[in-house]
């Protein structure tokens, strides 16, 4: 079966200090060659710390940012030109900050209409019916349609954002930290809504977050990013329970959990992106680092069964 989403060696680098003429002063590799697949109906969770390339990856996947190299395939079709309109019918994006993702000068109806009109050429009664259906799907009352975004709380605004994404009838949703800006008690409402919609509409999700617990709770599989590279991937229940990559283990140990003493307090920081290390990017912080690690970049490969890690000396379970 063709996967819903497939990337092959997807990369993106940014030029720093652009000049009017001539080459840029420096180049930062935000996403190193990255290949993965998401089967239809699955949720792939993506975790990583700030600056590890999560949002860059997400923006490439929806066509907002052209990749430097590599390919994106959605349901077997290659999307080789960064064109949000072409992507839009297949894959949509839910933003982190729900309020700033809604134009403050448009009514909710105008916001929801846009994808329906532009991507599906809908109008008249069909349009109204579809809007009503969407609003119902995200549990919002129809009288909200004539209001402006600032009248809504974060949780409601995020539902509107989800309704807008669904309006395009996409096959895949990219959820970029969809609940980080919400109150804890509202987070669960939105997460549950997303789970419900996924089943109902047979969607595929890419769920990006820095919150390990949230990712673990919603994902089928999890991919861990570090410094622009995929360092580990595997089934959700195994990745943090039996991490194979030392970085994943550090992450899992660092997360504060009730009933566990403070842990994971390991020194060290991210490498300088302008001056990346030769070998494994985690080597300066890794307790298992060897000479090999400092020389050669580890490739992502099977460690055991369905667990993959990019490490020369992966951990035993």
């Amino acid at each position, binding site marked *: 079966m063709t996967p819903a989403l497939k990337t092959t060696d997807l990369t993106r680098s940014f030029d720093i200090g652009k000049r009017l003429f001539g080459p840029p002063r420096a180049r930062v590799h935000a996403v190193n060659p990255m290949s993965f697949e998401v089967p239809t109906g699955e949720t792939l969770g993506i975790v990583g710390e700030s600056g590890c390339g999560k949002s860059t990856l997400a923006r490439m996947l929806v066509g*907002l940012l052209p990749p430097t190299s590599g390919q994106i395939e959605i349901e077997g079709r290659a999307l080789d030109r960064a064109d*949000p309109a072409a992507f839009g019918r297949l894959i949509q994006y839910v*933003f982190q900050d729900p309020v700033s993702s809604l*134009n403050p000068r*448009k009514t909710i109806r105008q916001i929801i209409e846009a994808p329906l009109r532009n991507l599906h050429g809908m109008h008249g009664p069909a349009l109204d019916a579809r809007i009503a259906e969407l609003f119902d799907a995200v549990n919002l009352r129809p009288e909200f349609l004539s209001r402006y975004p600032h009248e809504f709380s974060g*949780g409601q605004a995020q539902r509107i954002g989800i309704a807008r994404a669904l309006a395009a009838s996409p096959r895949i949703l990219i959820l970029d930290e969809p609940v980080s800006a919400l109150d804890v008690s509202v987070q669960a409402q939105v997460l549950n809504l997303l789970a419900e919609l996924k089943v109902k509409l047979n969607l595929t999700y890419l769920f990006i977050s820095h919150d390990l617990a949230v990712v673990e709770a919603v994902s089928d599989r999890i991919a861990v990013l570090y410094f622009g590279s995929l360092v580990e991937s595997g089934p959700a229940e195994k990745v943090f329970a039996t991490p194979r990559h030392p970085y994943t283990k550090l992450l899992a140990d660092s*997360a*504060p959990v009730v009933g566990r003493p403070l842990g994971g307090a390991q020194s060290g*920081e991210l490498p300088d992106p302008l001056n990346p290390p030769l070998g494994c990017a985690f080597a300066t912080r890794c307790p298992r680092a060897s000479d090999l690690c400092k020389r050669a970049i580890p490739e992502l490969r099977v460690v055991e069964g369905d667990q993959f890690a990019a490490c020369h000396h992966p951990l035993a379970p």
Partner: protein
Amino acid sequence: MSLFLRLLFRNKLAGFGAVVLGLIVVLALLTPILPLHPPNETNTANRFLRPLSDGHLLGTDHLGRDLLSRLMWGTRLSLAVGFAAALVAGLLGATIGVIAGYFGGRTDNVTMRGIDMLMAFPYILLALAIVAVLGPGLFNALVAVAVVNIPFFARNIRGVTVGIAHREFIDAARLAGMGNTRILLTEVVPNIVPVVVIAMSTTIGWMILETAGLSFLGLGSQPPQADLGSMLGEARAALITAPHTSIVPGVMILLIVMSVNLLGDGIRDALDPRLRSGALSRPMAATRVKRAEAPAPKGDGLLRIDALETQFHVGPRIYRAVNRVSLQLDPGECLGLIGESGSGKSVTALSVMGLVASPPGVITGGAIRLNGQDLIGAPYELLRSLRGRKVAYIFQDPLSTLHPLYRIGDQLIEAIRVHEPVSHAEAHRRAIKLLEDVRIPNAAQRARAYPHEMSGGMRQRVGIAMALANDPEIIIADEPTTALDVTVQAQILALLDDLRRSRGLAILFITHDFGVVAQLCDRVAVMYGGRIVEAGPTPKVLAAPAHPYTKRLIACVPELGAGRRALAAIPGLPPAVDDLPPGCAFAPRCEKARDSCRAGEIALDGDARQVRCLFPEVTP
């Protein structure tokens, strides 16, 4: 619209400006039908008549022309030219700015270099050069003034556009299949319009002055036609003998420009959302206190907060951010304060040392006793001497809480020297020691760094070092790790835990993360809607929460290691603190709520284990 007008006229000066300007504009419009002398009718026999002469209310000028009539016609001209120049400059400048800002990249680069080039001229030079080419004349002066002002508009609007072009709703519009033109017209421009209106309304006055200026120099309107500027220019020769010929047009310019400026300021204040909410007010050195009387002291303890009430008075609204909160902190103890956003955690913490921004904050009741001494309403000098010395703070975002322009070493040195008169060298030595204590490698060298040169974790270590500078008894840490990544958070928490044990610090630790509370705090208090709803020893509260809110909050937060599952969400929203229901604030979301819950005040019951609920989950 009506809201706009109401906001506009809230500002009395703007109203005054609007009235004066309105009057002048109406008179200018009516000029052709008013019974005035023809403005250019000369009568050399009646030169320089003083004001209030027969038939000439304002007197006459050097050619015996009626000043009142010339004034009215001149005003008409000046107003028209000023507005036209502002309109042209504003529209052209805004168009350039929007296009450069939206498309960015090379378009932006080239356009802005050009704009910079134009702005490299002191602007009158450009105007003079343009008039030199086109020749003197009112229309040419208008063109010159409009052209030289385009760069200012373009630059301003470009900045705003860049900000908007990077907002997420633009991306969303792209994904909704809109093209660049559609996005520009329907997403960007509507958001720019208020800025353009503000920019124009605050510069029209300036444009009127400028065109008048060129006419004054003889480069604008040519005789016999006169605008206000050229009237002044012609009158200058007779300044000493017939001052009224100068004063009349001069005062008119002053009146017009002043009323335009007042009105422009009013429009700006009414359109700018930040100014509208009155947010641009300066927080005072200490929070305002308006307290009837202090509650009687109860018991002791290092820090005792008794029935603290802190409110925000914004216009007619009262936000009860902290509502009769009582807390106690003993020496060497770590007390966790947990709650959702807006529940009043930070305001409680900031009230202790009078750091709540005021206006709009006011402490309206309660007592805060440090070693028995009440701090509410204490003189500023006392508060100041305690701040940082007895009670120190660590704030959330270490990038915005450190001064961006001072080296971190200097910030530490300052923290030491405000309370202790030690030499600079001694303070420097201690600062390095502090940096070492918080495990910053290479401390001596790092002391010379600026905050932006450090990573988030390092900055927060500096924040902690600064809090430790004077060996305080209490540290109030307001979500010190929320802005950090998990691995860095773990490092900082471990550091705080170490320091507290080795130095015997008492910590008030604010967070919204139960995991953190469990790992760090001896006791925990839960806040909801500005009140403490539950408090007690951490393990007990977490294991058997007594308040329904605590219980359900714990249940709806996923926990690492529990695997994939549906979460038990709490329906509804946290309450707005400007509109709290009577009785239990959680009642609208509580499954167990009954009428009695909504009837009236519910007390915080219990001793070591307290809960504010009529039907607690467990009996504490």
